[in-house]
């Protein structure tokens, strides 16, 4: 038995899709949230390229990712040959960011964070388990402990109202309980909004 067997197991590495950065940027606490997560946060070079366009530069999303990389909160990785092959297969019907995130997650056994339905289904198929949501990052216990309950709830509310973050239907009650019904009414992106609150 070698000594490494006794070392504490590192938390699994997370690899994030483009939309995660958009949500985190919108919530106003993105940098603090990612810094508080104990897991290493990886991003595919392709995702970085995806945010390198006129629109993302104008919204500040590109600069947000640059800051995260510069302060070493997020690490950008390139494909291996094997990952390139899987990317080639996936990119025919997924956008570049999703395809890259899934390809790297599948080959390196990272946990992908993807909110888009189609991307999540493909990720589950290739990675072998359900990907995480942006919501999981924002509500991570370490994040709540570090930035504080009130700030965490504010970040969640802004990600929903400003970023129109996608969340799973079965967690709507939990989210509304956190941000309160009054503020939930302002978040028209919530699944089943009309049935719950009317037009």
């Amino acid at each position: 038995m070698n000594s490494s067997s006794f070392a504490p197991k590192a938390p699994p590495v997370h690899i994030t899709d483009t939309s995660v950065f958009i949500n985190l940027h919108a919530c106003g606490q993105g940098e603090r949230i990612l810094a508080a997560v104990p897991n290493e946060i990886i991003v595919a070079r392709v995702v970085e390229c995806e945010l390198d366009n006129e629109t993302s530069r104008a919204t500040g999303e590109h600069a947000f990712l640059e800051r995260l990389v510069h302060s070493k909160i997020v690490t950008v990785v390139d494909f291996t040959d094997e990952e390139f092959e899987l990317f080639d297969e996936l990119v025919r019907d997924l956008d570049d960011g999703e395809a890259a995130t899934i390809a790297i997650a599948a080959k390196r056994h990272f946990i992908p964070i993807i909110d888009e339905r189609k991307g999540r289904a493909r990720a589950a198929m290739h990675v072998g388990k359900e990907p995480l949501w942006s919501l999981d990052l924002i509500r991570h216990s370490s994040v709540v402990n570090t930035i504080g309950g009130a700030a965490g709830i504010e970040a969640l509310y802004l990600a929903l109202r400003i970023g129109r973050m996608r969340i799973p239907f079965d967690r709507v009650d939990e989210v509304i309980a956190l941000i309160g019904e009054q503020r939930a009414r302002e978040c028209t992106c919530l699944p089943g909004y009309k049935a719950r609150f009317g037009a």
Partner: protein
Amino acid sequence: MVDLNELSAKEIGQRLRLAREAANIKQDEAAGFIKVSRPTLISIEQGVRRVRIKELQILAHRYGTSVNALMRREAVHTDLLPRFRKLQETEDRHTTEAIELFNNLIKADVELENVLGIGGHRDYPPEQGINDGDVAKLADKHAQGLRRLLGLHGPVADIFSIIQESLNIRLYQRKLSSNSKVAGLFTYDEKVGACMFLNANHPLQRRIYSASHELGHFVGTRRNPEVLETDEKFLSREERYANFFGRAFLAPADCFTQSFLRWKEVTVTDKVTRRLVILLANQYNISREACVRRLEELDLAPRKSWEWFKDNGGITDIQVEQILGESVYRFDAVKTDADRPLSHRMSLMAHAAWKRELMSEGQLAELLKIGRIELRKIIDEIELEEETDEQLKLRT
């Protein structure tokens, strides 16, 4: 096993060439990006050598597109940008802005139609050609021929609907920079059909005239792309033809003359008055200038009448308002539609493609050239309207 959805090396090569040309990048430069020789790049673009995924990713990024956009079966790749660029003697910011927007709208429209399995009905009247004879007479003949085909009598009530619904021409009306001189664009491509763009910053009557002018290009010389500017001099045969066509289609000699005479017979003076011009222009949905010019052309008003009006205080908006009252402020639905990040039609197509999981948020945002949050807002708005009473369900 052969994947039938897989694009051939030739198809990818062609798409790469079109993307490179659209990005205005030379072959040498592109070859340098992927560290191959120019002949190798040419063989990739010709489909002789299949591009490698690593190379494809680098090229896509350098060309300002994505690998997915190059690989999607339904994606539309045309040479519109380089074709329009050839028209420009010098690089002009406003023209470039207009043709890029036009190109993006066409690509998005056609791909969304392809993805959703809609559209595709195209049965255009034949191109007439303008090589022989007097352009004014030709334009008049062709304009009347088209009016007959469309069953039009008298003033044209809604030229935009005629263009879109009766002729199946793709029509986009969006806003360009406030000081842009571009009034309209027209192009025809085998893959996408006939397409027209109008600057939605311009007032309704100006857009009606621009649309009629572009219709002239569609009827007479549809193979050549065209840019119409507000101060255009109409020097070429094609432009003079389209200019005559525009007026003859909106204000055909016989019924325009008849309308003029009907106003004239109830006017005491034997002069062409401001009131008469305002009433006639309003009846035919044309500008005051276009109306006077048409009267001159048909010898119903003395030559240089418009210049006379201009030198003598013009025909002002206040005078128009005094005569027509509030009806002068017609509701212009296009203006409000053009204020949206996407037109209503494009928004609905994007929502449908997303809802049916045919395209992802990232793919749509890239195709439509809008931010993801903006796209989410559009999708959410439509989603909120979706839950309707069962009784309102369409019978299919």
